[in-house]
């Protein structure tokens, strides 16, 4: 069916002050042969929207290009329903607000006008290629699997159940409770955060057991997980017996563990009377604090950061050990008011209102705190431990004597050095990919609970070190994400970060060469393979980033509303002045998550930008196919800039690997470019994040100056 395209040009918000909008009509009518074409002074108000909608009702138009503000504004105003594509040509931000306005006589600047016309052409061409995405629908199983029956798991199960979804809870041990089983008391939980709480585990477990929609699997492990969100098949193993259940999403709450105390021989771990905080917690639970020979311990020292923030052991801060030791010092004083507790710290870290608990403990005359560096821990006979402290608050070189030494060890994820808890049947492996310290790979602040496996969320100390209070909050958050997965998946919609996106990649498998690039590069393990290596998509695992589209050398992967053809059309629509006009053209591919917002920010600040650039937004730089480079160079662009997020170990890519993959692909194409007698410097990737918005003119101008030195692209006009 032929598309009927309408082009609607806004002249408000200062667009008219820089652009001759009437002239753009000519471009739309003559070049693009649009079915309808209007200029309106205020397109997003009621009369403007009515202008568009009346054309829609009359049936003269079914696809729309709105040449006005950037695609990040007024998304809902310009939504014409699921049956109609609306594309946004951003002539307000990237032309009117950033390029030279009309002169004092009201004459428009030639370069500015050309840029506006190009954007009309680019989007007018693209909209003709676009199709309406059809949602991937499947029968969704609306239940959640929780792996791990500790504080996090129990809370997650209760939260999911509270939201009205059935839960399957798998616990490795015979008893529920996890690490909290051993706790004498819990940390303060309510204002003013000064007093310890009783161990509330029993109450929590009985609440869990009273829920009929929570199925418990004690002494069990997960043997296999196959399928995709909304439709996972899980094999639960209990001894020799196995059971298969169908579930929709997964919460991994297998917790953390303490760093192995025995590795800390520099802190005296090999001596008698030296225990880890876990061992001390268990001792405190019995109500007797003793040395190994059973005699009472009257002076108990705590060494903080035992193995933490130490490049030979754990390089990070677990953030919980300070509070834990303060809690245990409180035990010392509760159990015997004559007993002294020494806390030897590097920095006391008691985040937020935990400060109040720290203050309370500090006020106890029997709790002695000092900063210092541990020089040596030695044994004084069988009954005492000597701690040499340098640079302490009490003096440069001091020695302390304790009956019992507690090493406050940090936390490690239960994913480290353990059998797989998930056993995923994914082509990319049975576990969650990790990046740092064995924690599941996701930005733990920006995108909590997310892992690189869609529909599988991590919560609690398995994903970063945390205490019980934090784990409880984490459980609630992950539970909501798990429920969200069930609902969005049932509608065929994408999960984070393109929440609600209906488009999924289409594979024209007849032309697939089974090169496996897509199955390897997908950041989310969406693609499995058949025995020949042909990709077997699991659409519900997809997050619609387009990395597969960029990867495919055969260009057989595309989305209904985002394809290689569409991008290539945009590239080819730009009018390239010939080489004698000395008006170079630079193409910029900008990542929608970070770099495009930087342009918007620059525009809001009216930062003047080079008029020779043309910007094409992409979902992720991972979607950059090398054909874009050859298209751009062959139509005569003098240079191509790729702007995206930071990559590497501290990447900021929403799709994990997109900018890194783009960088890799570009490095491979450079050689080909050189072979064409073109300078490989014409193609370059830049890291541009939102807060780099003020550097944009400089970045672009530097690039343009460099390209100018090479002279115009020789393919111009060919």
């Amino acid at each position, binding site marked *: 069916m032929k598309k009927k395209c309408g082009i609607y040009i806004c002249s408000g918000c200062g667009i008219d002050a820089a652009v001759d909008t009437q002239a753009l009509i000519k471009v739309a009518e003559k070049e693009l042969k649009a079915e309808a074409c209007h200029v309106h002074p205020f397109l997003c108000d009621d009369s403007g929207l009515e202008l568009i909608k009346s054309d829609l009702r009359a049936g003269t138009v079914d696809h729309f290009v709105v040449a006005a503000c950037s695609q990040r504004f007024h998304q809902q105003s310009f939504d014409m329903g699921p049956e109609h594509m609306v594309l946004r040509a951003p002539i307000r931000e990237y032309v009117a607000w950033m390029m030279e306005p009309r002169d004092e006589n009201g004459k428009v600047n030639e370069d500015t006008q050309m840029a506006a016309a190009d954007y009309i052409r680019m989007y007018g061409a693209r909209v003709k290629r676009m199709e309406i995405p059809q949602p991937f629908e499947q029968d969704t199983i609306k239940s959640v699997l929780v792996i791990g029956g500790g504080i996090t798991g129990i809370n997650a199960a209760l939260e999911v159940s509270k939201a009205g979804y059935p839960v399957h809870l798998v616990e490795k041990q015979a008893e529920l409770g996890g690490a909290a089983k051993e706790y004498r008391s819990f940390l303060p939980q309510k204002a003013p955060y000064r007093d310890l709480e009783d161990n509330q585990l029993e109450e929590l477990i009985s609440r869990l057991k009273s829920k009929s929609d929570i199925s418990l699997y004690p002494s069990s492990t997960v043997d296999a997980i196959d399928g995709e969100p909304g439709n996972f098949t899980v094999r639960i193993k209990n001894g020799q017996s196995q059971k298969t259940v169908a579930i929709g999403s997964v919460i991994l709450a297998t917790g953390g563990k303490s760093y192995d105390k025995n590795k800390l021989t520099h802190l005296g771990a090999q001596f008698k009377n030296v225990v880890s905080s876990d061992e001390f917690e268990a001792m405190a639970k019995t109500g007797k604090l003793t040395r190994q020979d059973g005699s009472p311990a009257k002076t108990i020292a705590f060494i903080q950061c035992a193995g933490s923030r130490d490049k030979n052991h754990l390089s990070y801060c677990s953030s919980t050990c300070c509070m834990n030791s303060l809690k245990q010092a409180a035990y010392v004083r509760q159990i015997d008011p004559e007993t002294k507790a020494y806390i030897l710290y590097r920095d006391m870290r008691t985040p937020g209102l935990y400060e109040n608990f720290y203050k309370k403990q500090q006020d106890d005359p029997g709790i002695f705190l000092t900063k210092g560096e541990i020089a040596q821990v030695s044994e004084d006979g069988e009954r005492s431990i000597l701690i040499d402290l340098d640079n302490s608050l009490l003096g440069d070189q*001091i020695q302390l004597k304790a009956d019992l030494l507690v090493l406050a060890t940090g936390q490690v994820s239960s994913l480290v050095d353990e059998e797989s808890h998930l056993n995923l049947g994914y082509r990319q492996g049975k576990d969650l990919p990790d990046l740092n310290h064995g924690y599941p790979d996701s930005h733990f602040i920006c995108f909590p609970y997310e892992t690189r496996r869609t529909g599988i969320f991590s919560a609690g100390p398995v994903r970063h070190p945390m205490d019980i209070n934090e784990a409880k909050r984490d459980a609630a958050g992950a539970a909501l994400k798990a429920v969200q997965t069930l609902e969005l998946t049932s509608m065929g919609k994408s999960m984070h970060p393109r929440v609600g996106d209906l488009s999924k990649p289409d594979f024209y498998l007849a032309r697939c060469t089974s090169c496996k690039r897509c199955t390897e590069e997908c950041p989310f393990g969406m693609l499995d393979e058949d025995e020949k290596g042909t990709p077997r998509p699991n659409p519900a695992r997809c997050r619609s980033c387009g990395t597969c589209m960029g990867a495919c050398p055969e260009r057989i992967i595309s989305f209904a509303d985002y394809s290689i053809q569409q991008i290539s059309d945009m590239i080819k629509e730009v009018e390239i002045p010939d080489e004698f006009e000395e008006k170079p053209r630079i193409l910029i591919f900008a990542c929608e998550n970070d770099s495009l917002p930087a342009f918007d920010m620059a525009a809001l600040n009216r930062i003047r930008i080079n008029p020779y650039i043309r910007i094409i937004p992409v979902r992720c730089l991972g979607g950059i196919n090398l054909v874009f480079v050859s298209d751009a160079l062959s139509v005569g662009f003098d240079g191509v800039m790729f702007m995206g997020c930071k990559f590497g170990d501290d990447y900021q890519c929403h799709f994990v690997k997109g900018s890194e993959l783009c960088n890799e692909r570009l490095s491979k194409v450079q050689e080909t470019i050189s072979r064409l007698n073109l300078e490989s410097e014409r193609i370059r990737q830049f890291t541009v994040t939102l807060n780099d918005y003020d550097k944009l003119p400089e970045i672009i101008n530097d690039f343009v100056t460099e390209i100018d030195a090479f002279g115009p692209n020789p393919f111009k006009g060919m």
Partner: protein
Amino acid sequence: MTDRAVINADLKFVQGILNSGGADLKKCYQCSTCTVACPLSEEGVPFPRKEMIYAQWGIRDKLINSVDSWLCHHCNDCSDQCPRGARPGDVMGAIRQMSIRAFSKPSLVAKAANSPLGALLLLLIPMLIIGGVICFLNADQGFDFLTRERIIYANMIPVIAIDLIFMSAAFFAVITMILGLRGFIGGLKKGNPIINGGETLGQAVTGTIRDILSHRKFKECGVNQSRGTAHLLMMYGFIGLFITTNLVLVIHYLHEFGFDIQDTPFPFFHPVKILGNVSALAAFIGIFLITARRLFNQGVGKSSSFDWIFIGVMFLTVLTGIMSQVFRVAEFVEIAFITYYFHLVFVFFLLAFAPHTKFGHLFYRTTAMIYARYCGRSLPLKQD
């Protein structure tokens, strides 16, 4: 063995400081704002940050032997600036108190003199001695001093008896003071080794006396300027009264030995009388200000019994002294004699137990200030 300083936290000592006016000690988190704020703390040898952590850990030796705690004049600039409300100024006061208590001999007297009940018991001593002497001397005359024409206190208790009683009290004070100071100086030497650059003993003594007479150190305080004035009035008042007492003594005995001079009670415009009254007034205003400030907590922390017993006895001594004269002139016979009796009792307490009470700071602080100059305290001390 190791040459490291072995630290053993002393819970009891910490509790001692907490109960001696340093109740907020544990709030300190060692930011050292106090040291920066302190107008008396010098570069290289700062306080009171380190005293705060020593006190938190109850490191007795480091504290009672510290000369630094005596350089503090408790102006509370530090407490004013402390972000945690740990009141380092008050803690320094508590440390000095612990120091006096630790060195005072016999320690039982020190303990008694600074607890409310113990102080009452100790007050019984002068009450019984003086009361006993009065009874002994007057019983056979039927206490006729009450019915004589003029109120003459010497009729109740003759000067010679007073002198004998107070000489013994002073003797006790001097002996215990010497014992206390001997230990104290030993402690100072141990805790603050002499380094090159110190003053000679003579320079140190004259310098210190100059500092005390001018109250120079007090004047450097920021938030608590008026405190220096009160203390200054108080101190000069007492010096005046001390001189008056001694002049009276001399004049009395000169008279006894036949010199033709006016014996007590002196007329109103007698120079010694004027000196005595002016001094008494100064002391009264001083002690009144000090008491009021402590009562209404103006820039002063929690006062302990150590403070209150000293201030209270001081106050009562001055008050009964003034009132004795007022009642005598007004001819309230019984009240006048009773007031005078109590005046004697309080003076006895003040004198006899001076080294054990807060009055002892007169000796301890002076000694410490001299030692600080002598040992070259203004150069960095060797940290151990």
